[in-house]
């Protein structure tokens, strides 16, 4: 992965306040550090899901370091803040890294991922009280409904911020997603920005082979959504799309962003197949990955 030359300070919870406006070059640096965290976290416990996590690193960095208004002094109700829900909870490493690096909890805690007595559970959970997490996810297909409820509560409260939710593309095979897809336009939930990680992969193979998702734009448009498409691994395209989505909110329609990504993005041997959906790299593979994930000032936990 090519590295931008712009110099940035180390990515730590102390140096990245959520509200500071970051340039694409700065965001890329942060994303690279997040990707280093992801491969190190799953390597550390020889388990977890690097593929989708790497593919969505740019999105989560863009949301937490540029687009969303949010406060790392975490409050469950998120009043006056934008909320983010991760429906495809298996890509928890990317969320944990981004939360830690935007100040929700110490970056060092990433080292406890999937270990006993940790707040950093295999899949996102509220049970242990990890700041930044508002609901458990892992069993797929539930997050869009939850985000709709949170968005409707915001409307009842006269809170004009947005609710974001990310789903996997394979996850769209769950029926509940389509119950929610039908509900949101009917109830004019227009403070909702849903995203699909369209990497074309799931556990057993390419989505085309497992369960063809067909024309997702046409499907969501037919359900009454405003649909945008973007490249989820190109911050120069992704950030403007996220900003466009915010502009379009509040106009009566829920917004869907179909985001094309590559599973495993940033680590060459993890890209191009479903193989790295849920496999951790060994020592050698980790070294190889870290050589490709360079940052100007590395700040590994």
């Amino acid at each position, binding site marked *: 992965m090519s590295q931008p030359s712009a110099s940035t300070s180390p990515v730590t919870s102390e140096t990245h306040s959520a509200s500071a406006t970051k340039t694409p070059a700065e965001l890329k640096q942060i994303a690279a550090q997040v990707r280093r965290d992801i491969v190190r976290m799953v390597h550390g416990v020889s388990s977890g899901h690097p593929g989708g996590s790497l593919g969505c690193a740019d999105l989560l960095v863009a949301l937490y370091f540029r687009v969303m208004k949010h406060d790392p002094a975490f409050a469950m109700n998120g009043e006056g803040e934008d909320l983010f829900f991760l429906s495809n909870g298996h890509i928890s490493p990317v969320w944990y890294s981004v939360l830690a690096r935007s100040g929700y909890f110490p970056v060092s805690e990433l080292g406890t991922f999937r270990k006993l007595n940790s707040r950093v559970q295999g899949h996102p959970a509220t049970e242990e009280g990890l700041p930044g997490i508002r609901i458990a996810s892992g069993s797929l297909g539930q997050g*869009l*409904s939850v985000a709709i409820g949170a968005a409707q*509560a915001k409307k009842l409260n006269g809170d004009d911020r947005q609710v974001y939710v990310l789903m996997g593309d394979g996850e769209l095979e769950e029926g*509940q997603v389509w119950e929610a897809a039908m509900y949101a336009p009917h109830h004019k939930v227009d403070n909702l920005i849903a995203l699909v990680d369209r990497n074309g992969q799931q556990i057993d193979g390419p989505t085309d082979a497992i369960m063809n998702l067909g024309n997702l734009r046409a499907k969501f448009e037919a359900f009454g959504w405003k649909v945008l498409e973007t490249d989820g691994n190109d911050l120069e395209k992704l950030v403007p799309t996220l900003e466009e989505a915010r502009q379009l909110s509040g106009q009566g329609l829920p917004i869907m962003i179909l985001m094309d990504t590559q599973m495993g993005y940033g680590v060459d041997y993890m890209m191009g197949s479903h193989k790295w959906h849920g496999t951790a790299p060994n020592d050698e593979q980790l070294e190889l990955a870290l050589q490709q994930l360079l940052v100007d000032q590395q700040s590994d936990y």
Partner: protein
Amino acid sequence: MKEFPYSESKDTRSGFGAGLHELGKSNPNVVALTADLTGSLKMDAFKKDFPERFFQVGIAEANMMGIAAGLTIGGKIPFTGTFANFSTGRVYDQIRQSIAYSGKNVKICASHAGVTLGEDGATHQILEDLGMMKMLPHMTVINPCDFNQTKAATIAIADYEGPVYLRFGRPVVPNFTPADQQFEIGKAVVLNEGADVSIFATGHLVWKAILAGKILAEKGIDAEIINIHTIKPFDEEAVLASVRKTRCAVSAEEHQMNGGLGDSVAQLLAREEPLPLEMVAVNDSFGESGTPDQLMEKYGLMENDIVAAVEKVLARKRK
């Protein structure tokens, strides 16, 4: 045996509807959701007076549970309303992950539980709901006995922070508990003190237990009758205090024996006070079509069945 006078009989689901409507007036954070069963759940009054806080979800119960969980994040207190079957078995994983494990303040309100749903038959007659719900960590499980108690329970659970399963039904039963009662979650109610046997009943089987108590009194048997309106947290103290006096017990419920009230009593007795117990419950079978009365009879849930269970347990106690 005490008398339990009442002036009318009513369905417990109407108690829920009345309680929900009161909450609409008294608590602006209470919101209600239904999956195309507004009328069956008696939610019409709430819908009419608080339309901006009423969400029609359509026939999509999984989505309803997720939306309810999401609404709590903004401080709302969602009451979901559908049949007991579609409130539990249909959406177990949604409840498990998005509500129970996530500790969300959702009130899952379930009508038409058990065989007394009647003619629709076994597809709709869930007899496993209490068991499924009580197995979930963080879940409170409530099964009140009449209209007044269901209304009081509905109002009380809004003030309790945490997930609740509230079960009620369609049968019209004597409305004998006080209209002004304070519903205390987790607190069993001793209806009749007695020395010979403890009868622990839940839901509308509490009235059957009272009828059985009268028959038993005529036979010279002095039954203690206790209303277990909260299945979880289970009032172990009240159950133990009673059996330590009577030395035997009968449980009565419109539910499977596996996982129900009797199962909770049995676990407690086995651990603390191994005394004979008989269970009046459905024994590992689905229901079927019929009138509620016919089904109560066929599945052994009548006062006579409680009387027979008492006689059996008394014989075991004497041995």
